[in-house]
């Protein structure tokens, strides 16, 4: 199969869809002639012009609110934040308006808005360019929250987002954006539904649940542990809201042990929610306490030595898996 980067994969989905759906437009800083800070819209301005590839002033709250009103009246806006950190000034528009609009209107308005941005710690981007707020957005009813770990999934999930009538947070880890992976030909119109996790590796002894960059690191750790005789099943959540617990629980039934590996903060995070649901729906399958491994609960430091210390490393993941197996 051909190989594409994340960015090329989602750009293909966007290009394809913009050609057939004139209600789609993209807003953001530098997504016009420049093609996006990360190349998310490269080449599209030349095709569709400034109304559909709309460069904006630095007014995140403003253009998110604009996107809300546009979606209420029949357009399909995509807001491209480059770094997700810049979303915070628009949280009022997202929590109080976008997430609630379908509900407040008793389903008479739809809210087909995609909010995309890159997340994650790495490259000394420092604390204002390293955040991943997916747990925060998943706490709030009304939003879909997507965190792909490979280009294939990114494309399939982005295609679903482009057809969704719900608001979607589409979040890609900046340190894997440029990595290539197999993606089917353009003629293959596969989509991936929200709320369907992927069993990224089949194993017997322990279930590791992860997402995004950490999923990839967990897969590497699983590979290494295979050499030690530990058989690790790795589940890629792919979407944080909805959360595919049936897939997790099926795996747990087999392995009896579970570890959630997540780059972001532990408190009130993905691990907490997965573990709470495991307790509710799979307690009797547990042969050991369910565990989580997270990045440190701290703002992100700049210096490479500090930065490396706040993210779960390959070694820390491998050790956490061994610990769960031994527990």
């Amino acid at each position, binding site marked *: 199969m051909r190989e594409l980067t994340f960015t090329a994969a989602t750009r293909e989905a966007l290009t394809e869809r913009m050609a057939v759906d*004139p*209600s789609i*437009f993209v807003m953001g800083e530098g997504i016009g002639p420049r093609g996006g800070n990360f190349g998310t819209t490269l080449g599209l301005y030349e095709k569709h012009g400034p*109304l*559909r590839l*709309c460069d*904006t*002033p630095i*007014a995140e*709250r*403003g*253009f*998110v*609110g*604009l*996107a*809300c*009103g*546009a*979606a*209420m*009246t*029949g*357009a399909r*806006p995509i807001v491209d934040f480059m770094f997700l950190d810049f979303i915070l000034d628009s949280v*009022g*528009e997202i929590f*109080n*308006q976008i997430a609630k*609009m*379908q*509900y*407040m*209107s*008793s*389903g*008479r*308005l*739809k*809210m087909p808005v995609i909010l995309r941005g890159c997340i994650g710690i790495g490259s000394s981007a420092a604390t204002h360019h390293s955040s991943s707020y997916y747990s925060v957005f998943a706490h709030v*009813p*009304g939003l879909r929250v997507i965190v792909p770990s490979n280009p294939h999934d990114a494309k399939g999930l982005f295609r679903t987002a482009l057809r*969704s*009538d*719900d608001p979607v947070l589409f979040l890609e880890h900046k340190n894997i954006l440029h990595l290539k992976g197999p993606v089917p030909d353009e003629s293959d119109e596969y989509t991936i539904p929200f709320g369907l996790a992927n069993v990224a590796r089949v194993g017997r002894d322990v279930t590791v649940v992860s997402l995004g960059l950490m999923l990839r690191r967990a897969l590497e750790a699983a590979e290494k542990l295979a050499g030690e005789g530990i058989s690790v099943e790795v589940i890629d959540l792919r979407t944080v809201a909805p959360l595919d617990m049936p897939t997790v629980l099926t795996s747990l039934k087999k392995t009896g042990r579970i570890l959630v590996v997540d780059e972001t903060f532990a408190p009130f995070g993905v691990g907490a929610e997965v573990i709470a649901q495991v307790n509710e729906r799979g307690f009797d399958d547990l042969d050991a306490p369910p565990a989580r491994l997270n990045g440190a609960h701290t703002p992100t430091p700049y210096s490479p030595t500090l930065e490396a210390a706040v993210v779960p490393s390959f070694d820390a993941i491998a050790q956490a898996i061994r610990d769960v197996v031994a527990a």
Partner: protein
Amino acid sequence: MQVIRQTEEALARSHQAGLIHGACHTYVGEEAIAAGVCAHLTHDDALFSTHRGHGHALAKGVPPRELIAELFGRVTGCSRGRGGSMHLFSPEVGMMGTSGIVGPCILQATGAGYTFKLLGKPHVGVAFFGDGASNNGAFHEGLNLAAIYQLPTIFICENNQFATEIAITYATRNADIWTKAASFGMPGVCVDGNDSVAVWQAAGEAIARARSGGGPTLIECKTYRTRAHAEGMRDGGYRSAEDVEKWKARDPIKMLAARMPQEQAEFAAIEADVKALVEEAVAFAKASPYPDGITATEHIYA
């Protein structure tokens, strides 16, 4: 204006009677603005408003019975009982929603203008908001975006002099809100918000310009609310009784009537018709059922 006035007065009475469960901000004294602006709009134009939105909903075509039922928390309300006074939705008539948060309607109306421009439709987006909202960042960002994209969006600032109890002269050193349009290279207009004909004229020009691709306009309507900020709230201390009386004398309904002395009979007939309409609406609302609790989590997702 009669529909708004009499519905509001019915709502105020209903609030005292305990029929309204949550907040209730009336529009009494400001009716000329909604009436003057909405006279130019069709159901395809998109209206966005804020916490003081009853008048806008009615002027845009929401029947009084649906508004009253909504405030009574009934399933027949325009938001099916989910919304209440500050969350009025009737997309069928282009009433795209009110908000309990000050600011967003400015941005959403800008977004409606964006859709209409994108899809090549001749409609306009209209935002109604208070003087209080003009000091909010949403005003700055929304007006600027509408200006640079030259969107068909009309910004109606209802300057009733106060945000709750905070005077606009306290909240900004430049209380001529229309002058702030200059920051965005946008036309800014000031009208007497109690003069329905003046509002109608100014809105007509701005809306015609917007429909023909001439971009957005900010219209400041100087007005006054003659009831308390919200029903049940005290209304003293921050403004004088004389001021209230002075403005009551400038009642927009009376001002219109005074303008057309030959139409007194017509006005009286309208008043009587509306009285019957509103009475029927209250009865309808009272008789309507509450929504079933089991439906409380419907419509969160598409």
